[in-house]
């Protein structure tokens, strides 16, 4: 009680300053220091008052608890603690219950719910949740009591799937190239059959491995006339683009082809 008695005025009750605590007002000194911070709201404060005095929620002595609650509220005011409006609302509710209980009972025709019953139910529910929250808080949890295992997987060779490329997308991309080229370009994309371009690549690729080859070696009898034509066009085109050299060492000697 030391902390309390240091205060000049504890509370003003009915216009009279109270300097000493009434006998029945139980305010533990440790509660004063952290008053509002400690309580999660008016229900929490009420529960605290009830539990500290080993009262039964079902049978809280409303008159007594109201008096204590209001004394607390006043104390908070004196200590200039920021008080949420909910605390004042509860004080009003308690005062109302107290006054209703003083009135003679209107038996049976009282269809309105007993305001005390509502309060008691709220207190019970809040207490149940408060206890559950404490129990959840005490459960072993990740990062505090529980630690996941970390097993390295960097040694594993994981192949990433390669992007898919639908042919249609490829062609659309090329279409936009053609459009750009048409719009402003000196560059001509000629309309050779693709078989010729394919054959050009084929010939060049084969010439890569050898120094040179004879002209007839580039042709394949099995391909027939069409094949010969394609190869011939490819050779001409390669020559025109200076990708190959066609050499004849001396007149009438064998034609040889080599990569440029």
């Amino acid at each position, binding site marked *: 009680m030391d902390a309390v008695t240091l205060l000049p005025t504890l509370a003003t009750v009915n216009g009279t300053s109270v300097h000493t605590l009434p006998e029945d007002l139980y305010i533990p000194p440790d509660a004063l220091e952290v008053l509002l911070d400690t309580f999660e709201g008016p229900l929490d404060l009420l529960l605290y008052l009830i539990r500290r005095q080993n009262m039964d929620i079902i049978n809280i002595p409303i008159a007594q608890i109201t008096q204590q609650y209001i004394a607390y509220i006043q104390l908070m005011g004196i200590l200039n603690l920021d008080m*949420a409006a909910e605390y004042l609302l509860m004080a009003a509710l308690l005062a109302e219950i107290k006054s209703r209980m003083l009135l003679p009972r209107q038996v049976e025709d009282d269809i309105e719910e007993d305001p005390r019953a509502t309060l008691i139910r709220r207190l019970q529910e809040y207490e149940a*949740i408060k206890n559950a929250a404490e129990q959840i808080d005490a459960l072993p949890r990740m990062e505090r009591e529980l630690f996941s295992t970390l097993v390295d997987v960097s040694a594993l060779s994981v192949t990433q799937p390669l992007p898919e490329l639908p042919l249609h997308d490829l062609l659309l991309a090329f279409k936009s190239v053609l459009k750009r080229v048409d719009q402003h370009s000196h560059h001509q994309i000629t309309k050779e059959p693709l078989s010729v371009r394919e054959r050009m690549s084929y010939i060049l690729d084969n010439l890569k491995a050898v120094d040179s080859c004879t002209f007839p070696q580039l042709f394949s009898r099995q391909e027939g006339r069409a094949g010969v034509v394609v190869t011939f066009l490819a050779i001409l085109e390669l020559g025109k683009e200076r990708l190959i050299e066609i050499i004849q060492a001396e007149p009438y000697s064998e034609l040889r082809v080599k990569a440029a």
Partner: protein
Amino acid sequence: MDIKHIVEAILFAAHRPMSCKQIQQVFPELEQPELTDIETAIEAITDDYQPRPIELKRVASGYRFQVKVEYSHWVARLFEEKPPKYSRALMETLAIIAYRQPVTRGDIEDIRGVSVSSSIIQTLLEREWIKVIGQKAVPGRPSLYGTTKQFLDYFNLSTLNELPTLAEIQQLDESITDNPTAQAHRENPETTA
């Protein structure tokens, strides 16, 4: 290769809880074992690790290997950062959502008797412990909140049923008075509530 070993390798490599179904999906399409085979493997692995300091634990989103709680004292020292602490207000809000879901912010405020700060709801959403599961059909259409699998995972639970049981709300005697001694032993089946 032995299914059990593959399942064990998958559980260790996954770094997140894996359900039987998810484990099955990791197998190449034509080699997927039956779910019952995977369950059998999981049981065998769980037994194998009994004598070791880690355990295969079932949580809401699946199975995960974790260090047994009795070693947390040592293991916690590996991490310089202190584990996050949560305020009473946050834990009470979380408890209300867990036990009373689906609830609106208004419902939470009714039960706690004080307003709930947006930052608490925000923190719970960010941690993915709660999520919006709908809107209540009342004016303003407030969000209804519920808990997530990640919430259960974090608190080492596999279902909401494993939460601590909530104290039962005692039914009230109709004729309560301000006189506790007179009421203490009266039984009255007609109750208001």
